[in-house]
């Protein structure tokens, strides 16, 4: 799939801001820039401070909107959470290479941890839903699950505190041999475990990596992902990589 060319959109209008849990929000913005599942935008809603924009994945999109699902965890996301309908954000994107959808075949597992569930919705929309199982781990209260269920996707939940679904990590309810292809997005240690399980079972796995970014477009080299082919840039060569090529312990 060819990716649309990226743009810098100043003053994109906020259409909706929904609070889903204590610290998880969904922001919907008017923009025609779209993208593909797994791609992201550099987002800012402030002027000079903080200095850098924040990378956020595409959660949902259509011809004239993009939604982001995000968790408040610092200055930038706190400022995003203050936005109200009618407010403005600056977006640069869509950026990076998303999931290689053509390679997802047979029974597909999407294994996510926490806010890593963000790109799952737009990805599931492009897959044959009956073949998709989402295995989603959360610390506590789940979010963004109801809509996946309405798509007709099979969703299995694990929570660390046992407040919903199975108590424990999502990797404990993930059985790789039951699937033909796997996608994973979440904290690095969790994805490393998923990659290891998939490698053991010989199941191909695509992982969406996270790294701190400055430019977001491939120019500054602050976001390396060590791979068997040397350092790749998470922002421009990724964020989605073949899990078998990533050097996880580096």
């Amino acid at each position, binding site marked *: 799939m060819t990716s649309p*060319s*990226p*743009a*810098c959109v100043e003053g994109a209008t906020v259409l909706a801001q929904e609070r889903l849990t204590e610290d998880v929000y969904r922001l919907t913005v008017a923009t025609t820039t779209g993208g593909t599942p797994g791609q992201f935008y550099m987002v800012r809603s402030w002027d*000079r*401070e*903080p*200095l*850098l*924009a924040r990378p956020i994945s595409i959660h949902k999109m259509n011809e004239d909107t993009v939604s982001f699902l995000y968790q408040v965890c610092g200055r930038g996301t706190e400022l995003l959470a203050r936005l109200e309908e009618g407010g403005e954000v*600056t977006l*640069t994107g869509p950026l990076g290479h998303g999931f290689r959808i053509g390679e997802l075949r047979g029974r597909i597992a999407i294994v996510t941890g926490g806010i890593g569930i963000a790109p799952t919705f737009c990805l599931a929309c492009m897959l044959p839903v009956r073949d998709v199982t989402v295995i989603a781990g959360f610390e506590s209260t789940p979010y963004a699950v109801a809509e996946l269920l309405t798509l007709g996707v099979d969703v299995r939940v694990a929570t660390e505190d046992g407040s919903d679904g199975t108590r424990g990590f999502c990797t404990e309810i993930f059985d790789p041999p039951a699937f033909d292809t796997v996608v994973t997005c979440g904290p690095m240690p969790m994805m490393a475990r998923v990659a290891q399980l998939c490698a053991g079972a010989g199941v191909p796995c695509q992982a969406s990596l996270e790294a*701190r*970014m*400055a*430019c*977001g*477009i*491939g*120019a*500054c*080299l*602050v*976001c*390396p992902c*060590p791979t068997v082919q*040397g*350092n790749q840039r998470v922002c*421009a060569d990724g964020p989605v990589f073949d899990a078998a090529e990533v050097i996880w312990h*580096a």
Partner: protein
Amino acid sequence: MLETTLCGVTLKNPVIAASGTFGFGAEYDDFFDVGKLGGICTKGLTLHPREGNPGLRVWETPAGMMNSVGLQNPGIPVFLERELPRMRTLDTAIIANVGGGDLEEYVEGIRLVSGAEGVDIVELNISCPNVHEGGMAFGIDSDVAAGVVAAVRRVCTKPLMVKLSPNAEDIAAMAIACEQEGADAVSLVNTFKALAVDIHTRKAVFDNVTAGLSGPCIKPIALRMVWEVARAVHIPVVGIGGIATWQDALEFIMAGATAVQVGTATFIKPTTMLDIIDGLERYCANEHLTSLSTVCNILGTVPNCNILRRIP
């Protein structure tokens, strides 16, 4: 109005993309016509390829950022074969930024790069704080720097600009040493050696412990250094450090810079440099200046600066 001559090379305007913040130019070409820039400095190149530093590479600070990239680059032969031909289609001056681990790597690297068609200026980087051997080690002591510049000068067939470190013991003496050994220009500053501590893990944030600080927070110090150097040498000075607006750029020019480089501010907004160019154009029009050189180094003519002239 903005056309500028930098060591014999004509630039469309005095606004240049700083090394390491603009890749090899093509990345930003998706966002704007990079041919509108005065020039582009390449990512720091070394003769041999480098993987760069392990661990975290970026940390945000108030009005700035720290980086620890460590000169990751494909090596000069690969640059010449793959990146330079594409850069040459961008229609802007090409400044090859060259680093090295030891004197021999500098000399061989610059011999190769300066011989390549399409490279307009060579920027000798003796100021990278993020590599263990070489890099900034050559940019602290003026005598050591003089040795590198002299050796490189003998093989460099293009205009040679030396990029200075703000961590130098004496920045003006350093610039004078470079001029004496045949540098055609100096550019300053590279990043400031800085530290961040993770109080939760009780460790330095970066594997290398220290990293390089850039962005708006360094601007006033960088500006003072440019002013000191402009007073000390007769070769052109290129001002770098925290420039984010046309007013910032003009401050550097008034303090003695012939041209400026913009790095971190491009991360804030990809088109920052175009805004700076537009702003400078409007300024010239409003002030009825036929050339920016009219105000270049204008600070030096202010009487109350004379006492400070004694700085080496």
